């Protein structure tokens, strides 16, 4: 294909993936370490002594850096995308990171990472660049076009921020696809079915429900609903709160005063949660700073009573989505489960009841890995956009806008111009006039949401219509066209009808970067030069080799190293020696193979180091100054959650 490949990317809260269409089936592209999931964690390497800009690492290696330099690591940045200063401040109470201290109201908040500052789209861009590189490595050719998935309930600003991140990473984002819709595509591919499908998507931080009608290869979304602050994190927090309260009551130790210990208990809570999806009970067994042990058994029954309130919050959106689609549970032919949290048996039970499944002899679809299904669907959509493929030529996705679009009218009331669940692209034309003689400007405030007052909706942008010819009040007739494009992003154009002049519009997005700002944040402009491509891959391969060698060397001074067996140490030494010998060669494949071998050999070492850090944290010894800044809160997600579990 002359235009090159289009890849599908799932840019997740906890993990990200890149996939492509291999013939007739979508396939996830593994990273250099062989893992399909790239943890959505970004770390800034230690600052070089020569004052050069420190390099950025992404994924599993960044996760490891969390132990040594937590003040230089950021995770779950998706929660900050497209958000304003006040929202980020609220959200950051739950995170160990800090806002840059020079952030002004009205600008996109920047996060302090080591000595540098980054906006959330920049952090996401690093993750995207890593995925892009993984794909380039895999294909041996440049990848410049992608489809990226977003939660269906993402608003305009969150979508725009995601697109900006793509541009900064050197990717032309051909389409943003809603995650549940992508999942439906992944499932719908191998079954030429007709009918109504519900996609229930409960991830780490967000919940989406979408109802689709499938017919002749057309996936027509009927309605969507959700909650951008509901997911597995909320369950972790419940377990965490119980453990902390009990430790305080029974042992007189208030771990809440030791934020790093809180993070360690959280890891135990996450482990317990995951175990409880298969086992009938799980245990907390934590050594406390005063030498006591906190031991607690959590039977499945107790756990399920506990999480009921969280899971029940998905009920309302599901019912509303069915009402909006005009269907009853009996009319839903298939239910697809997406997101890691749908592994919880109680979630499956709830879904069964909501859609009357077992009563009708039906089961939800769980055949595809819930962590991968969204990326697979994105790859299908990428193939549709690339065109000229037999596998997808009959497929077409018709999605909807999740939130109503309105303009602020007199008295702060919202006049709705595009209703939620309208098929996109969708448009509305409105007319405006002046209120004062000779007036040449008209201000328009656009909001998104279902509430009646503009103040209760989310402000999207303020538009200033300028250059209106001076006329008697009420005489100018300015036609403004609002158009929501196929990505769910608003476009506006205006025309003064009496003079026929194209009115100038000055857009002030309430939350977001300007085009010029995005331009300055593009990561490496040379990234796409095809001539340098092979050279670049080789340099990257060598850098990766150097970086892992340095990390292994450093790890040898840790207590974890002492815990390894002789055989393990020998295996590491052999892999190290081999990599050191080949790292300067010109054969990329050989360097890469040796890098992967060393990474595999040190897997247990990395795990031991993580465990050691956790134990240290619980005992109250700080992991360094930054340990004290680790946050604690009702819904802080945890980067130490396993990146992959089957």
């Amino acid at each position, binding site marked *: 294909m002359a235009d090159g490949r289009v890849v599908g990317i799932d840019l997740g809260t906890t993990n990200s993936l890149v996939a492509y269409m291999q013939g007739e089936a979508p396939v996830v592209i593994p990273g250099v370490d062989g893992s399909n999931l790239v943890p959505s964690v970004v770390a800034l390497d230690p600052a070089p002594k020569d004052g050069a800009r420190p390099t950025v690492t992404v994924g599993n290696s960044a996760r490891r850096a969390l132990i040594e330099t937590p003040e230089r690591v950021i995770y779950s940045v998706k929660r900050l995308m497209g958000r304003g200063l006040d929202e980020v401040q609220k959200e950051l109470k739950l995170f160990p990171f800090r806002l840059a201290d020079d952030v002004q109201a009205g600008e996109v908040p920047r996060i302090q990472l080591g000595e540098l500052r980054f906006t959330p789209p920049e952090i996401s861009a690093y993750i995207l660049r890593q995925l892009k590189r993984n794909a380039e490595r895999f294909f041996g050719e440049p990848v410049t076009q992608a489809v990226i998935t977003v939660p269906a309930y993402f608003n305009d600003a969150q979508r725009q921020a995601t697109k900006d991140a793509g541009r900064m990473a050197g990717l032309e984002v051909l389409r943003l696809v809603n995650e549940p819709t992508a999942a439906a595509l992944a499932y719908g591919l191998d079954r030429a079915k007709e009918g109504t499908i519900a996609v229930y998507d409960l991830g780490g931080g967000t919940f989406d429900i979408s109802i689709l009608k499938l017919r002749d290869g057309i996936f027509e979304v009927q309605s969507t609903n959700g909650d951008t602050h509901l997911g597995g994190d909320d369950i972790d927090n419940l377990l965490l709160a119980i453990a902390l309260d009990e430790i305080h009551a029974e042992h007189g130790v208030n771990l809440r005063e030791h934020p790093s210990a809180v993070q360690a208990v959280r890891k135990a809570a996450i482990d317990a949660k995951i175990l409880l999806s298969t086992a009938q009970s799980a245990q907390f067994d934590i050594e406390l700073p005063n030498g006591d042990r906190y031991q607690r058994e959590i039977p499945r029954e107790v756990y399920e009573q506990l999480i009921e309130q969280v899971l029940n919050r998905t009920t309302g959106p599901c019912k509303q989505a069915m009402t909006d689609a005009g269907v009853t549970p009996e009319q839903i032919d298939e239910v697809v489960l997406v997101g890691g949290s749908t592994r919880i048996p109680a979630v499956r039970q709830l879904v069964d009841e909501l859609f009357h499944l077992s009563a009708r002899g039906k089961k939800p679809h769980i055949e595809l890995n819930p962590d991968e299904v969204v990326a697979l669907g994105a790859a299908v959509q990428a193939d549709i*956009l690339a065109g000229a493929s037999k596998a997808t030529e009959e497929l077409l996705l018709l999605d909807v806008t999740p939130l109503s679009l309105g303009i602020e009218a007199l008295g702060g009331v919202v006049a709705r111009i595009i209703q939620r669940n309208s098929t996109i692209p969708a448009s*509305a034309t409105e007319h405006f006039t002046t209120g004062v003689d000779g007036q040449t400007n008209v201000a328009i405030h656009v909001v998104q949401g279902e509430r009646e007052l503009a103040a209760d909706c989310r402000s999207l942008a303020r538009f200033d219509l300028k250059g209106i010819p001076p006329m008697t009040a009420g005489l100018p007739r300015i036609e403004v066209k609002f158009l929501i494009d196929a990505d769910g992003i608003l476009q506006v154009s205006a025309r003064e009808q009496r003079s026929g002049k194209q009115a100038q519009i000055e857009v002030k997005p309430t939350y977001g970067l300007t085009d010029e700002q995005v331009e300055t944040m593009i990561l490496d402009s040379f990234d796409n030069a095809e001539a340098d491509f092979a050279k670049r891959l080789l340099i990257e391969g060598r850098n990766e080799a150097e970086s892992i060698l340095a990390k292994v060397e450093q790890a040898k001074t840790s207590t974890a190293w002492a815990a390894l067996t002789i055989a393990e140490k020998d295996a590491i030494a052999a892999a190290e020696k081999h990599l050191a010998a080949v790292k300067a060669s010109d054969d990329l494949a050989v360097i890469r193979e040796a890098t992967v071998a060393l990474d595999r050999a040190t897997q247990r070492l990395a795990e031991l180091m993580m465990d050691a850090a956790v134990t240290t944290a619980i005992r109250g010894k700080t992991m360094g100054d930054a340990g004290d800044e680790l946050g604690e809160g009702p819904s802080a997600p945890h980067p130490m959650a396993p990146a992959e579990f089957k």
Partner: protein
Amino acid sequence: MLKVIDSAVPVACWSCSVAHNESTLFCPHCSKIQPPPGSDYFSVFGLVPRLNLDLGMLEHQFHKLSRKLHPDRFARASESEKDWSLADTALLNDAYRTLKDPIRRTEYLLKLHGAEIGEEHAGKGRIDPSRVPADLLEEVFDLNMQLEEMRMAREAGEKDAALEESLQQAKKKFDELMDEVERDLRAQWTAWDDGDEAARGAAQKTMVALLDRRRYLNNLVRDVTETLGA
């Protein structure tokens, strides 16, 4: 206001320069996508304005056109083709959304024929007493009292089961009245579609009144639902 297309103005295809009708989405000669036509929603589907529509056919046509027009089909086309695909698809979607819904379709067609149709009310407690349909005057008066009582009870943190029940009953009744209006509307459709000019005029007048009544009922139902659900 919506633009009514009065005559077919010939324009030329941007790609093959063959002249074609302004209302076409594709060039009949070279099949290339064209800039959005200034046509009404019916002609997007190649239909004459009618109220009785075969919804199955409409959906079929919608899917067929979507396959050809959707931006997904133009991801790698020229910038202008991308823009036209976006604008054409928005027009198609707006048209389908309007025509598949019986109420929106009726409102749209009547507006197309110059009827003045009021806008939806926004905001609570905005029931305008001067617009109350005469036969509902007494009930609306009672309902407003009950709604006020309910809101006050809510604010005081009390629960009045009898009042709630009575409001549920009222909602049910207004829902039924809405259904009745829709039946009456549908009864006028054929008169409009097949009648002569006089019959059309009469049907139009009746329908405008019915739509006003329906909008009024709709606001009532929404107020009750909101108050009950608050």
